[in-house]
């Protein structure tokens, strides 16, 4: 069953067509990877799907419903969440609070009861805090629950973003280069974490340059080049696709 579909999507910046009539679909329950050379439009695609950018043409369908042009905060309610290529951690909060923001839609967030600190707001917030702490355990950050996020190492921040994204209780999770800047052993841990997340029934779409990670975890790989879909298929199919090899030659082709 298709969970996410984009249909002839286009987005340009100035004269540069970052996404050019792109159509693709993502099946529910599988780990997908989107790969492609730098500037292929991978992050732009994430920004379009999550509503941060508005496309010039085309449609975005989440579980069959048209979500094109919806504000980003509405997408979270529809079960879509993501992490960011350039860290977008709330550095003015603790790790736990970061994850609690992820549960925003599941909080009692009415203004007056919050301002008056009514018991049910406090009670609900305590439950949220406990859930958030569990999520930090889940991603392997048990040691950082009360830590100020601006005092955490880079690798931990990457996982904090994943925990925060999971806190929205997404059906579809977009991970934008979760292993960028990590050493091989940390990347291995991210690999395990992605499998664990997929195991809970969340559909994962990954943008990543680390081919070992991509080939290891993905059931389906989509290759973007200059804003269009160059190829798709299993890791084996992609590895032997002549177009893909040509597009990657001189860049990441040596890892394929």
């Amino acid at each position, binding site marked *: 069953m298709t969970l996410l579909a984009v249909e002839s999507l286009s987005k340009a910046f100035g004269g540069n067509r970052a996404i050019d009539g792109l159509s693709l679909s993502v099946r529910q329950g599988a780990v997908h990877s989107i790969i492609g050379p730098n500037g292929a439009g991978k992050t732009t695609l994430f*920004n379009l799907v999550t509503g*941060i950018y508005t496309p010039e043409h085309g449609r975005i369908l989440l579980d069959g419903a048209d979500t094109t042009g919806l504000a980003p905060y509405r997408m979270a309610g529809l079960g879509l969440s993501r992490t*960011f*290529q*350039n860290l*977008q951690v709330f550095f003015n909060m603790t790790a736990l609070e970061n994850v609690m923001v992820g549960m925003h839609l599941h909080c009692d967030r009415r203004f007056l009861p919050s301002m008056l600190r009514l018991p049910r707001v406090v009670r609900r917030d305590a439950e949220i805090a406990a859930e958030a702490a569990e999520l930090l355990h889940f991603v392997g950050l048990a040691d950082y629950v009360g830590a100020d996020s601006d005092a955490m190492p880079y690798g931990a921040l990457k996982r904090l973003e994943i925990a925060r994204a999971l806190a929205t209780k997404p059906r579809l999770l977009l991970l934008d280069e979760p292993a960028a800047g990590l050493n091989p052993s940390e990347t291995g841990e991210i690999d395990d974490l992605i499998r664990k997340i997929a195991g809970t029934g969340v559909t994962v779409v990954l943008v990543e340059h680390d081919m070992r990670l991509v080939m290891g975890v993905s059931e389906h790989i989509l290759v973007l080049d200059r804003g269009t879909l160059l190829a798709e298929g299993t890791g084996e199919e992609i590895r032997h696709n002549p177009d893909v090899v040509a597009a990657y030659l001189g860049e990441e082709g040596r890892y394929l």
Partner: protein
Amino acid sequence: MFTEFLQFLLSGVTVGATYALVGVGFSIIYNASQVINFAQGEFVMLGGMMAWFLFERAGLPMPAAVPLAIAGTVLVGLALEKFAIEPARNASIVTLIIITIGASIFLRGGAQLVWGRDFHALPALSGDAPIDLSGVAVNPQSLWVMGCTVVVVILLHWFFSRTMTGRAMRAVAFNMLAAQLAGVNNRLILMFSFGLSAALGALAGVLIAPITLTYPDVGIMLGLKGFCAAILGGLGYPYGAIVGGLIVGISEAMTAGYVSSAYKDAVAFVIILMTLFFMPNGLFGRRGIERV
């Protein structure tokens, strides 16, 4: 009817040119440092006050008093950069704003201490007798203001497009890190920007002082309207600030002439709010694309 309009236009362009000079100062400092210097209006005040002091009290001739006043203000600008901005380079925008506001209070306090709280009149550069141009009375000082502004704009254009320092400043404005990697000395550029802005402000102060009088608080409104000019034109676009300054000055003069002089001072701010509501980056400002 038409002469009246021309008369208003003339006074609008005169004031607008002053705002433009102040606005360009805002833009130049912003480009070098992302700092909005709320003490910009005080440069105007210092220029006028120093010129008055050197001419009236020290008895220097005008051709010596004016350059000395500008040079003195430049020194203050450099000191401001060196002792207040430089040590706080990594502070947040709000903190830097407060520092420059502190500097403006400090400079006003200093001016009061040295020159008193009174209003002072600097004599006009070539007399007060209005020149009659087919019914429009032209104040010779207005011609000085407009003439000097045109010369400054031409010089700035030459400076930014032809000289190494000017090009380096544009490079820093465009991409600070890349400019640094290319060997541009950011600290020197920053010093230079404060000096240049102070000079522009002081020049505006000397030119406008015979028309508006000069006093320690004269810079507050001039500074704010110069800020309006800079924002209106799109922050960081010196040429935009010039257009912005002229728009603000002319609108003020027209409002004062045709509508009500009571709300003259509000015009600049109404224009700026209306512009920002519909064009959040000013008239010529680049639209930033959020990169995440």
